[in-house]
């Protein structure tokens, strides 16, 4: 049984449909990345999972509990890191953690011990006794992570966890999330609009545009979905280029387009035509210096999906 199961979720804010018939299943121990531009509906989905936002239609089930009718049971097992996490100005990091723990029914002594442990894990051992208003953005996020973990959750829901942290901090922070998740078997749902960061730690991602999940899977699956059948761009550096070679290339049925600039030939063709092209070049007597088949990166995937999204809008 999936840990988080979303069926036909619809959420409307007046005229605007933030989430449109969304289906999603997340398995135990998985790290799932919800990707999408700002305003795609990521936060709305997250709030629905926590039972903090009432869906217009559809159901969200978390560990067998309906998030709308039994939100407290859901929140007992789910830790949530909001996108702009904050703490009471006049409390120290340690006090904030103890407070959260006690809201979860953990006795004060026990809370104090596990708060100290967690502060050490997230690297705030020395800052724990300082007031949180002196913290930097990165420290806030770390304290936020400790705050999520102190209730010993089965599920962590992290909304834009990397926002506002410097690049080095992001790598450490995400690595920490992955480590904790894998060590303790915690299911993680995190949202982001930065694909690069997320793909490093996610087992699976879903791309969300205008409240619809356009694609789901791991990065290579996404790439296959998008570009699998399509032609790719093959570039070859050849010297000399003979007219015979160009003619031969153009006559090949699987090749769509041939362009030539200086001694580089740019060919649009199916992915698997690369060996045939290399043979043709050798056959024509040219020296092949380089033959490359363009691999689609994450940016292309992202771009492609979001372009598609814009067309719908």
């Amino acid at each position, binding site marked *: 049984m999936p840990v988080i199961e979303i069926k036909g979720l619809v959420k409307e*804010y007046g005229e605007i449909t933030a989430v449109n018939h969304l289906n999603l299943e997340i398995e135990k121990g998985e790290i799932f990345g919800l990707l999408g531009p700002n305003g795609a509906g990521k*936060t*709305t989905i997250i*709030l629905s999972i*926590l039972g*903090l*936002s009432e869906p217009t239609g559809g159901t969200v089930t978390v560990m067998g509990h309906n998030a709308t009718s039994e939100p*407290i*049971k859901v*929140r*007992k097992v*789910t*830790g*949530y*890191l*909001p996108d*702009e*996490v*904050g*703490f*009471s*100005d*006049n409390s120290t990091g340690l006090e904030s953690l103890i*407070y*959260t723990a*006690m*809201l*979860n*029914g*953990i*006795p*004060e002594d026990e809370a104090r011990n596990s708060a100290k442990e967690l502060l050490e894990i997230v690297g705030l051992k020395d800052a724990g006794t300082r007031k949180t208003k002196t913290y930097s953005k990165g420290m806030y996020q770390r304290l*936020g992570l400790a*705050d999520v973990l102190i*209730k010993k959750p089965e599920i962590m829901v992290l909304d834009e966890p990397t926002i506002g942290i410097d690049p080095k901090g992001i790598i450490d922070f995400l690595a920490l999330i992955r480590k904790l998740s894998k060590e303790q078997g915690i299911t993680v749902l995190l949202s982001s609009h930065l694909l690069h960061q997320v793909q490093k730690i996610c087992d699976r991602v879903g791309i969300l545009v205008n409240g619809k999940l356009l694609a789901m899977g791991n990065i290579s699956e996404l790439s296959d979905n998008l570009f699998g059948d399509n032609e790719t761009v093959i570039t070859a550096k050849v010297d000399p280029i003979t007219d015979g070679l160009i003619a031969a290339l153009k006559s090949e049925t699987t090749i769509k387009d041939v362009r030539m600039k200086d001694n580089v030939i740019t060919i649009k063709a199916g992915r698997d035509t690369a060996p045939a092209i290399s043979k043709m070049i050798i056959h024509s007597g040219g020296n092949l210096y380089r033959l490359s088949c363009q691999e689609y990166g994450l940016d292309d995937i992202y771009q492609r999906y979001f372009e598609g999204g814009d067309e719908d809008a």
Partner: protein
Amino acid sequence: MDWTTSISVILKEVTKMPETVHPFRVMVHKEISDQVRSWRFILLVILILLTSAGSIYTLLTVIRQHPVQLSAHSTFLYLELFTKSTSNLPPFITLIGFLGPLVGIALGFDAVNSERRRGTLSRILSQPIPRDYFINSKFVGALAVIFLLIFALGFLVLGLGILVIGLPLTLGTVMRIIVFLLFTCVYIAFWLNLGITFSITFRGASTSALSVLAIWLFFTIFYSMLVNFVVNLTISNPYAAHYLGLALSRISPNALYNELTTILLTPSIRSIGAMSFAQRVGTIPSTLPLGQSMLLVWPDITALIAATLICFGVSYMLFMREEIRA
């Protein structure tokens, strides 16, 4: 072990929380400690302490030296501590009626919007607690602080009076003072709830603070002028004008509170408003017992409590319907 360490050990034992504490208690606890530690609360308390100390001090000096100046035949000297003034400083009852709402507003005006701005609202609400715990703990926490402050202040004044005057205190007087302090708390709670309501409606703390203060200023200063203006404009019969004026002014919570407390602390007042000669024939010029005084202002009591509860109801409803996301 010397006495300081043993006291700290005892304090630790006393203040120590039991094993698992109900989340609501934890939240109220936190709310109270946040309020009490905030600068604006400390400043307001200092302001109230200084002004009431000034007012009471001059009054006590007069009572000690020239009691005749204050009242020739008063049997309720302790009550007059709260209602009479001999210097430029207003009496205690007026001071509290003026500064009390400010305390309520200060405790409530940013209850929800500051938590939203800081990003603590969604974090707290994502804990396994019912949503209304949040708004209820805000209310209960601030109310506890108000009760503590008002009763401490009231008993301080009374205690000072006992020390200086030295006359025995009657049960009736103490009851009257307790009831007076109780309704002062209700009155302040009204402004607290208004503040909380505005803190849900407005996203900016300064906007909500200014809005509540505007309402407070309107009722404190302009409303009575407005009532006079309207009454003079519409009615020429002085008897009818008086009643219309009274009815209109009772819309204002300030007027309700002033009427209520003045009558509760002045047993010699036998009726509100004008009485005809026919009505006064045969009355004995004595003071009223507490129950009768309360009966006299029963509508004010009801209205004040109702206004406070309605205000809380509105804020509760607004908060429960509010979308969490900013």
